């Protein structure tokens, strides 16, 4: 489900079935990395929407968590988000990003960080891009299914 009025209506009616939150993490920068952050934004937007489409009934896709690359308290801020989500009875929180910086914080985040290198989609034919995204989605869905199966019942 997406963060739209219609989907949230659906969420409120079937809360007990939705136990997973997905938060895409996208950096912003006005310096040398500016273009890369653009690529990441494009890639993660499409990827997270595709994942949401496949797993609509169990995943709530939160609006993207944006931060500036050199922002000091981004880790604290993200932790705040995650805590808020957990307090609202979500058992699984997945963080999806292409920014390598988060890999260093993985231990501290205690969540399922899915790091996936961004494919620069702007140079690809639409068919190719779709195919590549589909493959990535399948892999990520595997991670999700694995986590769901291993939860304590």
């Amino acid at each position, binding site marked *: 489900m997406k963060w739209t009025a219609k989907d949230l209506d659906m969420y409120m009616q079937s809360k007990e*079935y939705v136990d997973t939150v997905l938060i895409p993490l996208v950096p912003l920068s006005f310096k040398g990395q500016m273009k890369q952050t653009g690529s990441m934004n494009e890639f993660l937007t499409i990827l997270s929407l595709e994942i949401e*489409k*496949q*797993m*609509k*009934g*169990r995943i709530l896709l939160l609006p993207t968590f944006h931060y500036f690359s050199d922002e000091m308290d981004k880790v604290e801020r993200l932790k705040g988000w995650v805590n808020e989500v957990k307090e609202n009875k979500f058992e699984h929180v997945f963080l999806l990003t292409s920014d390598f910086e988060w890999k260093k914080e993985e231990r501290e985040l205690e969540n399922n960080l899915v790091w996936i290198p961004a494919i620069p989609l702007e140079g690809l034919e639409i068919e190719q891009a779709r195919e590549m995204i589909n493959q990535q989605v399948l892999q990520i869905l595997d991670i*999700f299914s694995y986590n769901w199966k291993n939860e304590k019942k």
Partner: protein
Amino acid sequence: MSKHNVSRRQFLNYTLTGVGGFMAAGMLMPMVRFAIDPVLSADKGGDYVATKQKVGELTTEPTRVDFSFKQVDGWYESEETNTAWVYKTDDGKIVALSPICKHLGCTVGWNTDKTNPNQFFCPCHYGRYTKDGMNVKGTPPVSPLDVFDTKEKDGILYLGQLKPHGEA
């Protein structure tokens, strides 16, 4: 000067008739257009979308068929990709099922649950459907998978409207 002089009265008559005619036409045209509109509008219900699937290559095993179409989504038009699970029944009839789970809208896969082979399986809440799209009792979905209208043209599979099971 030409020999045939136009009098002031004639000149005014001509211009008034001309302008008046234009105005009348400007008013009448939209009215006529509205009146016959139902005749001109295309029949939306009969829209079939071509897939890349050759009908001859279909088997009794459900295959994933992707197809794309233009969708107007409130603000902008986008190219939407959709999927169907298509197979032939034993007597050669083509069945195209929607992959959208009737429970909460996840995408179902064919034969992806190892403990329940030859069924459609929804990974979200482990809902299951038999091959003909009927929901398995005891799993979350409460109704069978929707069915696409199908059509064959030049050996290519065309998919049409999505309908509840049993109405296609």
